[in-house]
């Protein structure tokens, strides 16, 4: 982002390098497939110009073999690229377990990033280099899209849903961060800086950034303040599903279906508890829609994730 007239975007990860290689290699194939057309058109325009003497005998009007050939062979060649490209794409959709999770809330017209320790940023994202980072994103209003050109990645950010984007940035530097799904008035200025730091610098930045406690801790505060422990706590008189160890587990639902207790399920249970009631429980949980913001939901889910892990460890 530093040169005035840049011809190629910065590469901030191994994935970016691979995408660029794919792009260049495929461009070469494209040129190879198209060049004959351009060259021949020019050649024919000169050689077979009306009035110019040339051998026009036996001008072909059909050729099943050659037709089949130039239909199938280019297709098979592109298929090779299809396979590699799909493999790369599937990689970007499978974050490794234990990745550093940063929560993202998009709204008209700004980006809010929240690190697990509770550090918050607006329109700027600091990440450590050399480790897997997973962004869990949602929107407060319309569809946005987080674009990090230096990583060659983007992901639409939807209201009412969590979408994820993971990466491993290996080159420290300052890069662009942009919204790339038209979202209204200030769409063009919804963005800022994406800053990759060496892990030591990142740790230092985290300390300096100040926090009100980690996301999980803040979530616990909310859990108590909203009265969730009234039903879900150990001393409750109401029958409510146990939340320790719940995160990531399959949940049998009323009606015979089974779902997984992921971020989306937890969020939906808080906002729309009547939608997917756990099997064997009465649908008596009140909704908290209107009482909790997206940020609150992030904290509650972070808390539930943390007690999911603790129960896991306790079991060992």
């Amino acid at each position, binding site marked *: 982002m530093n040169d005035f007239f840049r011809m190629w975007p910065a590469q901030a990860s191994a994935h970016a390098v691979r*995408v660029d290689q794919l792009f260049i290699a495929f461009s070469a194939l494209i040129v190879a497939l198209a060049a004959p057309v351009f060259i021949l058109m020019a050649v024919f325009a000169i050689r077979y110009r009306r009035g110019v003497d040339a051998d026009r005998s036996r001008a072909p*009007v059909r050729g099943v073999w050659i037709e089949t050939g130039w*239909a199938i062979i280019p297709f098979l060649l*592109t298929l090779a690229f299809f396979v*590699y*490209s799909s493999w790369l794409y599937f990689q970007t959709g499978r974050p490794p377990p234990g990745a550093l999770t940063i929560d993202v809330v998009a709204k008209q017209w700004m980006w809010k990033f929240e690190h697990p320790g509770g550090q918050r940023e607006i329109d700027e994202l600091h990440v450590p280099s050399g480790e897997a980072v997973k962004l869990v994103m949602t929107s407060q209003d319309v569809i946005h899209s987080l674009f990090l050109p230096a990583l060659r990645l983007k992901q639409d950010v939807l209201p009412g849903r969590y979408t994820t984007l993971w990466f491993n940035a290996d080159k420290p530097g300052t890069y662009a961060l942009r919204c790339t799904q038209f979202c209204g008035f200030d769409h063009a200025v919804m963005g800022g800086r994406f800053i990759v730091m060496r892990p030591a610098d990142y740790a230092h930045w985290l300390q300096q950034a100040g926090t009100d406690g980690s996301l999980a801790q803040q979530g616990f505060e909310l859990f108590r303040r909203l009265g969730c422990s009234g039903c879900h706590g150990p001393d409750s008189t109401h029958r409510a599903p146990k939340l320790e160890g719940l995160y990531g587990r399959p949940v049998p639902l009323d009606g015979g279906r089974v779902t997984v207790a992921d971020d989306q399920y937890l969020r939906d249970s808080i906002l729309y508890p009547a939608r997917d009631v756990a099997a064997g429980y009465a649908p008596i949980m009140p909704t908290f829609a209107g009482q909790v913001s997206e940020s609150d939901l992030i904290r509650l889910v972070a808390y539930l994730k943390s007690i999911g892990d603790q129960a896991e460890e306790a079991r060992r």
Partner: protein
Amino acid sequence: MTDRPVLQTPEERESYLNAGHSLRSWFLTTDHKRIAILYLVSITFFFFVAASAAALIRLDLLTPQGDLLTNEGYNRAFTLHGVMMVWFFLIPSIPSTFGNFLIPLMIGARDVAFPRLNLVSWYIYIVGGLFTLTALVLGGVDTGWTFYTPYSTMFANGAVLWVVAGITIVGFSSILTGLNFIVTIHKLRAPGMTWGRLPIFCWSHYATSLILVLATPVLAITLILLAAERLFRLGIFDPSIGGDPLLFQHLFWFYSHPAVYIMILPAMGVVTELVTAGARRRIFGYWFVACASIAIAAIGFLVWGHHMFVSGQSMYAGAIFSFLSLAVAVPSAVKVYNWTATLYKGELALDPPLLFAMAFIGLFTFGGLSGLMLALLAIDVHVHDTYFVVAHFHYIMVGGAVSGFLGAVHFWWPKMTGRMYSLTWGRISAGLIFFGFNLTFFPQYLLGYLGMPRRYHVYPPEFQPLNVLSSAGASILAVAYLLPLVYLVYSLRNGRPAGPNPWGASGLEWKTASPPPTHNFDETPVVGGPAYDYPQPAAAGHG
């Protein structure tokens, strides 16, 4: 070229043009040729309206700060540009003008199957067009031509409802035109005109008509749901009660992807006519080319998800759509290679029609290949919603469809008007358009890969040089598009009278007078040979 007989001017002979001069005879006509002229004038009007919006956009993008338009104004400008270009220029352009004018002539019929319905189609188009334009200009819509929810249903201010209503109205014009063409081609072919002897122009329009009738109704229901959601505050696309904005995208693109084939297939049909006439050769691989048109239409219905690779759609769906999107390129490639092979050993006349056809082949090939690039998942994740996509579809729609349209104008102008225009100016036009076009849109591929998103009113300063190049190209294009208006209109009074077949082309339309009489043929033609029945070039051996 020695003494030629002095041809009567079109005014001196009875033809569809002078069979009645009253307004009533034009506005209540059921003659497919007059309806084609009505369309020609109207779509030209809408083209220049939409192009003016583009001019504003490119002017504004000369500087990173966007000092010409406000935020709101810019967003409304690109929406107006997209809506008007897609529905009021590109989709009707070739079918409603040249399809209407030529299909009956090419198959040896006296008119289309439902002439009064044809006129009704034009009125629906005009009403829809003026309604939408008024709403866009007076009310303003900033959602983009794609109307993604929940922005368009719950957040956008402006005349969304009115614009959506206008587009729904004009959809019926498309549907009825497609219906007319399908029945015409099935039922009104002259004796001897079998399916295997149809000009490829007719095959392409047949394939286009299949898409018109099957896909456009899905657009209608999509827009009805959008309007209902906005008007009655339903929740179908509202996530807070479980609605799914992604379902809107699926429904929208299920129509809008086939729609782009509506925009390109007719141009491909035109190009086959221009190449065969310009080279005076039969098309190479007639059946491959004919079936490729149908294949494009069919496979085109299966690829809509490639607009949604980063939308939150499942990765597996993404892989399937990626594969099918690569597959849909195959029939297009077949056409491109076949056109090139048709030029081989032909007798090429470098007149405007062939030049426009060659411009089409070059630009469409380049644009289509960038489409293959976009079909590759990992690359699309990077360039989706950037100027790379903008460049891709402009290469196809402007470099392709508009070149096809202009090529058609330059080829059939003498047939429609009875006058020939200046070939020199036509060649200049073709060249200027080719050059201006590449200067405008090639830099946009670079901008996209560098990371400039689309629909950006302001941009980071490092993108300015490429934007300036693009805007410079646009100014050349503006001149290049205005040029034909000048010399073509000039030819109406001062052009040399063209005979029935000034290009020496094959096809039933060239066997009747220029301009044709109202009933097209004095006697119903009987067809005895294949399409593009050019004599083999004088040389030893057989073809």
